[in-house]
C-alpha cells in the first residue's frame, strides 16, 4: 500500500446563520485547500463529498464550480463523520494505487433547535420522544459520574476550555470565552447537560487535498502531513455498551496501523458533540486512564499547554458542528498543529503525532496523522 499525505486543507468559517448557498460555502473551503496544496484542480482525479441534509447530487454542484473535468464525484453520508469518511475513502483509493490526487469535502447548512434524522424514522421513535441527541451523551455522562465520581463542575469545565480555545480560532462559530458559572447556570437541556455544553447547529464547509506521498514532490505545497493509520467501524455488538461497542479495539487498530501507541499522541481531536464527551471518549481511546477524565479536565491536562491538548480549535461545542462538514475541520486543525501553523492555539513543543476521533450515528473513526 502506498503512503498518503495531506497537501492542503481549507475551511469556510462555521456560522449559525448564513445567506450563502452550499455551493458558495464549499467553494471557499475547496479554494483554500487547493491554494495550500499547490494542486491545480485539473489534476484532481476524484472527489468525495460528505453532507447529511443537502440535496441529492450536491457534491457535483459544489465541486464542478472549479471545472467540469469529468472526474467521479461521490456523495458520502455517515452522519457526523461524513467528511472524515470522504477523506479516508479517498485515502484508501490512493493507497491502493487507483488515484494519485483526490479532493475530499464536507458541506452543510442546518436549521436550529433539536436536530432530526431527516427522511423516515419509525413513528414510535418520534412519538415517544427518543430523538433527543443530547440524551445519549447525558446518559453516558451520568453513568460516568456514578461509576467514577465525575462531577457536574468537571463536565462544565470541558465547555469552559472549549470556549477558551474557540476564542482563539477565527473559523469558530463561538469566539467568546465563557465562565464556569455561565456554563453551569445555562438552561438545562438533558441532565446533566446544559445549553452551553451542547454543540450548536451550524453551517460551514471543509476541504482537503490528498496525494500519494511518492507524487507529492510534484507540487509546491505546505509541509505534507501523513495519514499514518486509520480504522472505521459501525460499532461492534457488546452487551455492556451503551453506544458503539469495540472502541478500544478500534483505537488499537488505528495505533497498530500507524505503528504508534496512545502515549505517542501529542495533540488530539475528539468528537465532543456535547462537552462531557471530552471526558469519556479519551478514556475509551486509551489516551486517559479509565475514570480519570474528569480529573484531567480539572487539572488542565487537556488545555493547549497541557500534557495532552484536546480540541485546540474549540471542538464541536465552540467551533460549531455543521454535521457533514465537521470531520475535515477536525483534520484541518490537526494539520495546522503538526505544521506549527496554529498561531495563538499552537501546541508548544512541535507536536509530531495527532489523533482524530470522529463519531456519528452512522459510525466511528479513529485516524492518526504524522508530521
Amino acid at each position, binding site marked *: 500500500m502506498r503512503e498518503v499525505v495531506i497537501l492542503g486543507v481549507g475551511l469556510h468559517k462555521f456560522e449559525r446563520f448564513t445567506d450563502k448557498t452550499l455551493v458558495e460555502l464549499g467553494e471557499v473551503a475547496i479554494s483554500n485547500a487547493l491554494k495550500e496544496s499547490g494542486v491545480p484542480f485539473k489534476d484532481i482525479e476524484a472527489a468525495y463529498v460528505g453532507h447529511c441534509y443537502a440535496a441529492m447530487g450536491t457534491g457535483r454542484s459544489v465541486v464542478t464550480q472549479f471545472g467540469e473535468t469529468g472526474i467521479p464525484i461521490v456523495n458520502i453520508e455517515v452522519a457526523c463523520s461524513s467528511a472524515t469518511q470522504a477523506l479516508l475513502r479517498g485515502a484508501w483509493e490512493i493507497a491502493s494505487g487507483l488515484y494519485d490526487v483526490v479532493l475530499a469535502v464536507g458541506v452543510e447548512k442546518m436549521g436550529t*433547535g*433539536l436536530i*432530526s434524522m431527516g427522511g423516515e424514522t*419509525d*413513528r*414510535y421513535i*418520534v*412519538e*415517544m*420522544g*427518543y*430523538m*433527543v441527541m*443530547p*440524551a445519549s451523551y*447525558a*446518559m*453516558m455522562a*451520568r*453513568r460516568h459520574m*456514578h461509576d467514577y465520581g465525575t462531577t457536574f463542575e468537571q463536565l462544565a469545565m470541558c465547555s469552559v476550555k472549549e470556549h477558551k480555545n474557540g476564542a482563539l480560532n477565527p473559523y469558530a462559530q463561538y469566539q467568546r470565552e465563557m465562565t464556569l458559572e455561565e456554563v453551569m447556570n445555562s*438552561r*438545562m*437541556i*438533558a*441532565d*446533566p*447537560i446544559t445549553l452551553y455544553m451542547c454543540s450548536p447547529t451550524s453551517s460551514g464547509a471543509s476541504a482537503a487535498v490528498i496525494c500519494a506521498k511518492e507524487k507529492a514532490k510534484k507540487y509546491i505545497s505546505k509541509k505534507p502531513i501523513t495519514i499514518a493509520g486509520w480504522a472505521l467501524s459501525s460499532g461492534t*455488538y457488546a*452487551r455492556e455498551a*451503551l453506544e458503539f461497542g469495540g472502541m478500544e479495539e478500534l483505537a488499537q487498530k488505528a495505533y497498530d496501523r500507524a505503528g504508534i501507541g496512545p502515549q505517542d499522541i501529542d495533540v488530539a481531536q475528539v468528537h465532543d458533540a456535547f462537552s462531557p464527551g471530552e471526558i469519556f471518549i479519551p478514556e475509551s481511546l486509551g489516551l486517559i486512564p479509565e475514570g480519570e477524565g474528569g480529573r484531567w479536565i480539572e487539572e488542565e491536562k487537556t488545555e493547549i499547554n497541557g500534557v495532552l491538548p484536546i480540541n485546540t480549535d474549540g471542538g464541536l461545542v465552540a467551533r460549531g458542528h455543521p454535521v457533514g462538514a465537521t470531520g475535515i475541520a477536525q483534520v484541518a486543525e490537526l494539520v495546522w498543529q503538526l505544521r506549527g501553523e496554529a498561531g495563538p492555539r499552537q501546541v508548544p513543543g512541535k507536536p509530531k503525532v495527532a489523533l482524530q476521533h470522529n463519531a456519528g450515528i452512522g459510525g466511528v473513526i479513529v485516524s492518526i496523522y504524522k508530521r
Partner: protein
Amino acid sequence: MAVQRKQVPIDGRLFKLPSSPSEKAHLIGSRCRSCGETFFPKRSYCANCTSPDMEEVALSTRGKLETFTISRATPPGSLIQAPYGLGYVRLPEGCIVQTVLSECDPQKLEIDMDMELVIEKIREDEEGNDVMAFKFKPV
C-alpha cells in the same frame, strides 16, 4: 351505551397487551438459539453472531436502571412533553431497553434502581382506539 374502547400498541413489534385480566403486558424480544444473546426490539438476525436462528421471547417486566436523563426539551413530533425521563433499563435476560421513564424528578431516580414496565395511553388513532406506549417506572 358506553362502548369499551379498544387498546392498540403504538407499534406491534414492541410489546403485547394482555388479552385477559389475568395476563400482564410484556415487551417482545428475540433470543438467539445459536449464541444465547437476547435483544430488544426483536430482530431477524443475531447482532452478536449473525445467526438467523432467532426465537421470539416474552421479556421480563422488571429490570435495573442502567442510566438516565431528564429531557427538558420536546423534540419535533414527540407526543411526550418535556420534562420527561429517558433511560436504559437492563433486563435479567441481559438486553438493554431504551425507554421513557414515568418519573421525571431526577431526585427520585437512581442508577441501579429496580424498574417496572408500565403501559400508558399516548394518543387515539383514526378509528378511536387508544394507542398505548410502554414506559418504565421505579418499583
